[in-house]
């Protein structure tokens, strides 16, 4: 019975032709979604970085370089490196 109802619904949908403004509607919807990006610049930056693997790698690499500075200082203290 459920399958029968589903088939009927499918046939009814197939008989309906798409409106001529469908493309415009899709474009408008996409534009609206773009306008819904966070207002806060930091959140916007995070959203953009989430879509860019290169940016993520660069950020994490920079963090690693900065975070290793105390270890560099420890190595300098132990006379393993000199600068």
């Amino acid at each position, binding site marked *: 019975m459920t399958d029968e109802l589903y088939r009927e619904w499918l046939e009814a949908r197939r008989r309906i032709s798409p409106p001529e403004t469908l493309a415009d509607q899709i474009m408008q919807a996409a534009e609206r979604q773009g306008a819904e990006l966070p207002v806060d610049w*930091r959140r916007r930056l*995070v959203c953009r970085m*989430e879509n860019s693997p290169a940016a*993520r790698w660069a*950020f*994490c690499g920079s*963090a*690693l370089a*900065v*975070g290793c*500075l*105390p*270890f560099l*200082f*420890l190595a300098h*203290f*132990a*006379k*393993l490196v000199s600068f």
Partner: protein
Amino acid sequence: MADETLARRVPWIALALSFFSAGVGHIYCGRMSKGLVLYFAWILVPLGMIAAAVLPRSSWTLTMFILLPALTVVGIYVYAAFDAWQIASRDRSGIALRDYNRVSVYVLLIAIHMVYPMGLMAGVRGLVYEAFVIPTASMSPTIQRGDRILVRKLLARPYRPRRGELVVFRNPEPKGAEVFVKRVVAVAGDRVELRDDQVWINGEQLERSPVPTELRQHLGRQPAGNVWQEINDGGRYLVAYETDDERPAHAEAVATTVPEHHVYMLGDNRNLSKDSRHFGPIHLRDIIGNVDYNYWPAGTWSRFGMLQPPLP
């Protein structure tokens, strides 16, 4: 007041914050207690060094209280990054934001973390232990060229060095190296005489015995000349009388009395050392500290740790 909004934690942000500073990634993920423990892990290094400075000297003390805490801090840094990534990846539904879940808090913690480990290290170097690399063979066979030594600055006050101790002191002359490492052979009031490669303290010749070649080969790169085991005030140490073409043996005899608040220093490689024979006794205020450990020996690791000769 806590903000109960559920917020998704982004794994790569947690990882990056942990890379910046161990523990901040956990704080970003709402794990404040664990984050703070990881954040302050650097304190292990100075605490270990202070403990090592007051404990009896041994290779075990060096390993457990100086080397292990330093390696632990490195391990904690790696673990914190991995764990923060895991937590953020696991908490897909998000966390309830707290007061501390703010960019300004993360930036402040990272900024502090850029300063406080370096401050701790600078404090340790100034007050507890300082490392030196040995550039010459003047203390061979005890300390060889390329050895890395740890000098304890945390000294008893008033500091009264004993005969046989290894100390680092400021060069009393304006030119040459800034600091020297030598052995105290005589203290204030002692009469020192040096002649024919032998040392007399208060009229008594220091007892010494030759070190057989088969034992010397286990002690790393050794001087070409004669090596003796000398006994001074109960302490045993090795001395060498090495010569080369550029610097002949120090043939000039010395006879002097060490003044008050001074000590008389000699290098263990007696013929290749610039010491009190050249610039006289050293004032106690010029002493920087005691040499406790050879933590990175050049050549062979059999000399790791202690500076006592492993001889019978």
